[in-house]
């Protein structure tokens, strides 16, 4: 299998705060990794290291050939919903087009083909009718759909979703997983969630992040394994599909 990104002995954090210790993981094409762990355990830090937003204190991040920076964004990124300015004057189409902006370029102009591509993606998510609307007029679920479009419009080699199932309606959730399944036929996906129950059915492997990273090469994970990984998450089995809730943990 083709490796696309590899983290070797990565220790990372903010200033003197070390969040992640000695992380090793290789991401391959066709991987679908669910990243779980308690809040504050380092899930978002891991995402930032992979995105290159934080430089590791020690260790290194290797981007293989297919990930080398070119004219297109190689990593699609769906951030947590909370950070964007909801009343900023920008159209939905422009938000999606920002997914086609070239890395390290000051001048970004978009061809007819690129605009058509953006509309195509909006149509496939069922929100083409919103293309010329102002982003601020959308509902929370519609905003999430637009962000998903922005993340996948460049056909990225790797798609990273940070807690995509917060503030979202059920319809979006099933649409999302359908879209991801199709995407995963050719691309790698990393999905961060504190709720393994909703993602266990779709992912192929699970990474438990709680200061350290334990990589589990299957989507079936037992309570004993979670305990052994020092991952304070509780699983309640419902038939064959594991269902989980977050266990309160004492810090």
């Amino acid at each position, binding site marked *: 299998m083709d490796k696309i990104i590899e983290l070797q002995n990565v220790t990372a954090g903010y*200033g003197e705060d070390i969040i992640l210790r000695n992380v090793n993981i290789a991401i391959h094409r066709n991987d679908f990794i669910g990243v779980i762990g308690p809040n504050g355990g380092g899930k978002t830090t891991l995402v930032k290291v992979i*995105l*290159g*937003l934080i430089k590791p204190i020690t260790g290194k991040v290797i981007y293989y050939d297919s990930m080398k*920076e070119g004219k297109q*964004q190689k*990593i699609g*990124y769906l*951030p947590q919903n909370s*950070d*964007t*300015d909801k009343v*900023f*004057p*920008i*159209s939905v189409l*422009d*938000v999606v*087009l*920002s*997914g086609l*902006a070239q*890395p*390290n*370029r*000051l*001048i*970004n*102009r*978009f061809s007819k083909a690129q605009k058509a591509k953006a509309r195509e993606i909006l149509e496939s998510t069922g929100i083409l009718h919103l293309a010329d609307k*102002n*982003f*601020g*007029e959308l509902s929370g679920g519609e905003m999430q759909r637009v962000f998903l479009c*922005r993340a996948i419009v460049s056909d990225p080699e790797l798609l990273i979703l940070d807690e995509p199932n917060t503030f979202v309606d059920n319809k979006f959730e099933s649409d999302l997983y359908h879209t991801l399944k199709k995407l995963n036929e050719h691309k790698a996906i990393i999905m961060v969630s504190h709720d393994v129950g909703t993602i266990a059915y779709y992912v192929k492997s699970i990474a438990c992040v709680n200061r350290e990273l334990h990589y589990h090469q299957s989507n079936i994970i037992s309570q004993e394994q979670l305990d052994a990984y020092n991952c304070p998450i509780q699983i309640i089995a419902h038939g064959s599909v594991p269902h989980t809730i977050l266990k309160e943990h004492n810090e």
Partner: protein
Amino acid sequence: METIITLFEYRFFTNALLAALFASITCGITGAYIVSRRIVFISGGITHASFGGIGIGYFFGFNPIVGAMIFSVLSAFGIEYMSKKTNLREDSVIAILWSFGMAVGIIFIFLTPGYSANLMSFLFGNILTVTKLNLVFLLILALLITGIFLVFFKTILFIAFDEQYARAVKLPVETINYLMITLVALTIVFNIKVVGIILVISLLTIPQTIANIFTKKFEIMIWLSIIIGFLGSISGLLLSYYLNVPSGAAIIFFLVILFFISKIFRNILTSLRIRKQIQ
């Protein structure tokens, strides 16, 4: 004799018209950016910090605008750097630089022998006494800002909308941010002569807020802001001429009245539309 007076009147009035036009273009564009990005407070900080440069200019006998330029650009960079790279709170940094600039300005003006009559024109501005040199600077700045926005528009828009995402996909966030904050600083400095330190923030926010009442599109917001700014400046100018009051204050007064009228007009329009939908 009369022809000379008319000519003189004509000339200073043309200068004032040009100043109003260039001020509307520079403030209209950067102001739309400031309002959309919610960095009005940063702009207020830069404006007042520039007063330090004016004081130093007076004391050492060079053009106070040059001093203001140095102070405003440095404080703009200071705010941008300190709020991102250190763990200081952005609004605290702004408050410190804001008051530091004012303090330096007051100290040096106090130390300068004699009373500077010109000081009032820096605090409150006078569009009727804008110099030719200042006009030329304003024109160059207007062309520069227009050019930068035309060429880099989408990149500026994407970074302003979602900086975190822009960083993640490797857009040139730092370069654009420093470029924009420099433009903001320069816009403030070269418009000080037009409306003054105390009032320049209003040319950067009131036309944009009025525009924002009628449009939610960034491009249209820029165009509307320029038009509203220009109309406000001309009306204020006439108002100041007939009532014999300071032009800067008259311009702002007119713009604020326009803001309230627009808001009321919009509210009536909305309620009419709602009533129509119900029926």
